Each structure stands twice: as structure tokens, then as C-alpha cells.
């Protein structure tokens, strides 16, 4: 029982990070139609924003976290201006290739700036453990699950209870109609990129102390977040959350109860199964119904 609690906590913490990265994917995809293949590097950049503010600049934690997230918001705006805006009239595939190229560029820019050695990003809960029914559970892992839940709630409030959120949803449904209704579509698209970058930043800051800050950490996150998005349903926020948690739990429980050697096969096998049997995922709308 103790081992199961241990595994569930670790799986949920891992799944929460995948969920946040997947939400970043979904927000950008819903608003712009672009599958952002640099999403993993966005998370890596979030971690390194933390390294720059907390380790390099030596800022106190609350100030450092805020500064890192502001830096990520600025990065999101810059990405919109430099990558998305010039390519917005190009075919979607061009934009997608653009995101791949930018992802590689970001990774190598981080390598040149920070070097190849990983960093140990401190946690506000450094070394804190609690015992639950015989299982030793890291407080940081619990904080990750709680923070993700709070972020999801805030995101729901933003999208359903604020004018800007409702306008974003309108743009996601139909850009032309939104423009005809007088909505400032370009500003809303920019805000989507900013929001995606900030969410990736939160995921990165939470991941840093769990893993290490490593310039190569983006690719595995992107792959898992992509699997989470497919399983949950492309374009669906509840789907991204469910998919992220599912992949995190499948990874940890699969390794423990089936085989550690084939645990990735389990997560990606399920993704392939969804693509074959239910391509719209758990919560996604049938593709032919999208307007």
C-alpha cells in the first residue's frame, strides 16, 4: 500500500507537469491552429528563467519566480512578433516547421548561454518529506499537484468569467466572425502565445527542482505533452489535463506493475490506439464537427 501511495504521488506530480505543458499546447493550437513543436523548449526556457533569476541573479524566491514568469510572458510576446506574425499568412505547415526550427535554436542558444552542465534549481520545499501510510512523499511533489490544480482553476476563470477569456474562445472558434464582431484578433492571438509561454514557465519552474535544469529537458516533455494532448483530445482543455495525468500515471504505474523496459511503449502505445480508434481523444470533438 505504501508503495502504491508513493507511485500515485509521483505519477500525479509528473502528470501535472505534462498537463500544464499540454495546456500550453492546446491554448496556442485552439487560438492559432498551430501545433507548437517548440512547446518542450518553452518549458526548458521556463526552468532556465528560474536558473537565471534564482541562481545567477540571486533573487529571493518570490521575486525570482515572478521575474522568471514576466520574462516568459515577454518571450511569448516576442515569439508571437518574430515567429508567428511574419508567418501567419503562410500555410500552417510552414508555421509548424518554423516552431521546430525555433525549438532547435532555443535549445542551442540555451547550451551556448548556460553550458552543458545541468543546474540544481532550489525548491521552496527543499528536502521536506512527509510520511503518508508508510510512504515517504516529497512536499514539492504535492505542491506541484496543488499548483497545477490552482492554475487550471485560474485558467477556467480567465476563459469563462472574463471578457478577454470569452473573446479568446470566440477567436478560437471562428477568427473571421470574431473580427467581424470587432474583436482585436491580433491582440488576442498575442495573448494566447503569452499565456502559453507563462504556463510553460510555471511547468518549468516546478520541474527544475524535481529533475535538473538541463538544456535538453525540452524534448521528452514535448513528446509526453503531445501524447497527453492526443489522448485527451486535441484542442480540449479538460482533455489536456486528463491526458497529462493519464500519461504520468501510466508511466510510473506501468514501469512498476508491467515492465520498466517497456513503460514508454505503454504510454505511446495507448496514444497510437487512440489515433486509430478515437482520433478526437477522450474529450475532443469529432473532427468533422469543427467549424
Amino acid at each position, binding site marked *: 500500500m505504501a*508503495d502504491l501511495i*508513493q*507511485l500515485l504521488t*509521483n505519477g500525479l506530480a*509528473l502528470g501535472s507537469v505534462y498537463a500544464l505543458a499540454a495546456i500550453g499546447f492546446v491554448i496556442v493550437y485552439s487560438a492559432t491552429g498551430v501545433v507548437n513543436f517548440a512547446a518542450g523548449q518553452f518549458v526548458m526556457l521556463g526552468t532556465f528563467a528560474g536558473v537565471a533569476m534564482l541562481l545567477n541573479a540571486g533573487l529571493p524566491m518570490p521575486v525570482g519566480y515572478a521575474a522568471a514568469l514576466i520574462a516568459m510572458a515577454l518571450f511569448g510576446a516576442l515569439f508571437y512578433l518574430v515567429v508567428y506574425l511574419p508567418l501567419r499568412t503562410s500555410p500552417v505547415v510552414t508555421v509548424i516547421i518554423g516552431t521546430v526550427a525555433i525549438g532547435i535554436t532555443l535549445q*542551442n542558444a540555451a*547550451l551556448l548561454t548556460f*553550458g*552543458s*552542465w*545541468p*543546474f*540544481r534549481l532550489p525548491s521552496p520545499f527543499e528536502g521536506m*518529506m512527509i510520511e503518508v501510510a508508510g510512504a*515517504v512523499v*516529497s512536499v514539492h511533489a504535492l505542491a506541484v499537484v496543488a499548483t497545477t490544480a490552482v492554475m487550471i482553476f485560474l485558467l477556467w476563470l480567465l476563459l469563462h468569467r472574463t471578457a478577454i477569456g470569452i473573446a479568446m474562445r470566440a477567436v478560437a472558434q471562428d477568427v473571421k466572425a470574431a473580427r467581424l464582431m470587432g474583436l482585436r484578433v491580433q491582440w488576442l492571438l498575442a495573448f494566447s502565445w503569452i499565456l502559453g509561454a507563462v504556463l510553460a514557465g510555471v511547468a518549468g519552474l516546478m520541474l527544475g527542482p*524535481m*529533475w*535538473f535544469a*538541463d538544456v*535538453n*529537458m525540452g*524534448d*521528452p516533455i514535448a*513528446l509526453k505533452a503531445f501524447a497527453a494532448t492526443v489522448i485527451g483530445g486535441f484542442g480540449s482543455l479538460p482533455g489536456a489535463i486528463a491526458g497529462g495525468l493519464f500519461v504520468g500515471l501510466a*508511466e*510510473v*504505474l*506501468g*514501469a*512498476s506493475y508491467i515492465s*520498466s*523496459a517497456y*513503460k*514508454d511503449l505503454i504510454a505511446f502505445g495507448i496514444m497510437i490506439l487512440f489515433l486509430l480508434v478515437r482520433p478526437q481523444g477522450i474529450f475532443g470533438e469529432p473532427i468533422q464537427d469543427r467549424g
Partner: protein
Amino acid sequence: MTINRRTILSLAAGTALGAAIRPAFAAGEPISIGAVIPTTGPMSLSGKQYFNTLTMAEEDINKAGGINGRPVKFVIQDAGSSNSTAVSAFMKLIQETKPPFAFLTSYSTQNLATAPEVVKAKIPVMYAGGADAVAESSNGWMFRIRPTDSLAARGMAQFVKTLKATKPGILYIQNDFGQGGAQAAAKLLEANGTAPVGMEAYGQNDKDFSAQILRLRQKGADVILTFVYPADGALLLRQIKALGLKTPIVASSASFLPAALQLLSPADLENVWGVIDTFVDASVGGRMTDFTTRYKAKFGQDGDAYGLAYYDGALLLAEGLKKVGTDPEKLRDFIASQKSWEGIGQTFSFDDKGNGVPGVVVVKAKPGTKTIELVERIRPS
């Protein structure tokens, strides 16, 4: 400023004096040596070390007069983090630079992929991947400057006996290096009458090892052998401690590289032994002190055993170039004939498969610190 005859004479005298007292820098047509090194991607973590030490070796060789008066020049190509990139980088070197010798990476998978091209190119190479299979396909042209994985596994299995453990568990990275090392260790442990109670794998991109650690605990492992890369080796040790395990750990060399150690606390290193290539520490004295001090001063980091292996390799190559010239076959024969060449980190003795390192060492952190000390040297028969 007015230039008169006295000024010109003073300048001429100064220049002549400068030339007379400066070290014997090499001049003339440089000898190009190829080096395929991962300078980008995940493998650059180790690659950067031997990129640095080869740069350092180039400077040192040239400052000491080069190769009979000619400077050496290391032409470096990025091996990236894939086999195909490593092969392309090697082929580019062969086609464009046409070197008489090349260094390959420290990754077995890349070494294995490049081996057929080395045989076709017919130039000797030094490499540092540990998989035994590489030597089988080298056809006499490839020389290994680090211990083989089976040698490291023998050292680990032997040390398990020292610890008097009877139920070893093995945790390994799922690639040629990890699988090869784990299987070799399992066979040796079985032969010693202590067959592993469990063998768990993890993927190269994995970051959570709780499932594997808990499975080994469930199976009652009283020692865990790990075959890991630096960053995941450090993360694994942290997670083992976070899960409250007190089981002794015998880790492969990457866990004790400076890149991994800087991520760990003294508590993470409690009850952890490393079976590593060589003890790279200023306290060793002599040429080792000089190397570690100069490396740290030049690059701002501690040097590691991988970097030192390439530095030693470059010095051995320089000696070969001085004695037999740039003919690839003569160079190959020169390296193959070395049976007790004294490097800084190793005494190289090449066997008929080109394996040059006959032993490993066991190290451990002093209690409550991250200061590494030598426990014993193992030279399996």
C-alpha cells in the same frame, strides 16, 4: 613619435632577444588530426570535457615544439547526439581533412555506427565508448582509451563481494552501454553465486525512477548496481535517498563525474561507491596535480576521467607521430605495440582487440562531504 636609428636598433635587438627566450613553438605546415565530438545535444555533457582537453593538448603539444617542429591542429566535427550525425561527421573529416588519425566519441552506440567507416578509411582512431562489441568490429584500427563495460562490470561484481552483499539488484539505462554493462555484471554475479534479484531499466529521457527503485526494494536487493549517464545518475541517487532507501549503491563512472557530483549533496552520496576509470584529483600529485590545476584554471570546472583519457590519448598520439610520422599503418602499429605507456590517468596497455585500459578504481565520498577518496584499485584477472 620620431623614429631614429637608435629606436630601430632597439626594436631589432628586442625582437631577437624575444625570439631567443620564447618556448619552442612549432612552426610550418600543421598536421591535421580529426576529432568527432558531441558539442551539441545531450551528449555534449561529456563531449565538452574532451573538447576542452583536446584543445589543451593541442596547445601543450605545440608549445613543446609540436611534432618535430610541425604544429598539430585538431579539426573538430560535431557528433551531435545521434549515430547518423556521428557517422556523417567522421566521413566529412575523412573527405575534407584527410587526417592520418582521428578521435571518436565516448558513446558506444556512435562508436559502433562509425566502426565500418573507420575500417574503410584505414586510419587509426581512439575512442572511449565502453561496449565490448565495438572492439569486435574494429579490425585493428580502433583503440579504446577507457575501460570496457565488461571490465567495469567485473570491478563492480568484485566489489559486491567486498560489501558481502548476496542479493544484488541492477538498474541500467536502456542502450548499448547500459544493457551491455548490466548483462555482463549479471553473468559475473551469477558465477559468484549471487545472481541478481532484479534488473530494472530506464529510458534515456526518463526523469522519474521511483517505480524501478521500489521494485528493487520489493525484491529485497541488499545492494544496487547502477549503469548510468551523469545527469540521470545524479537524479537517480537523489531519488533513492528521497525514497528513504539505505541500500548501498555501486555506481558506474558517470555518477562520479564532476558534472554529476555538483548536483548532489553529501547526504546523496552516503553509502554510494563508484567504480570509475581513474581517480582524477589534485591530491594524487605529480602530473595529475598539474593537469587538474591547469584544467580548472583554464575552463573554470573540474576535469574528469573522460577528458583526461583524451588528453592522454593526444599525448600518446603525439609521441607516435614524432617516432613514426603520419603514415596511418605505422601509427596504428605504434599504438598497438604500447604495453606500458605511462599516461597521467592510466598506464595504457593495448591488447589484441585494441583495449588499452586494464583496470578500474573504486572511490567513495568522505562521510558528510563531497570529497572523493580512493578506496581500492581493481585489476581483474
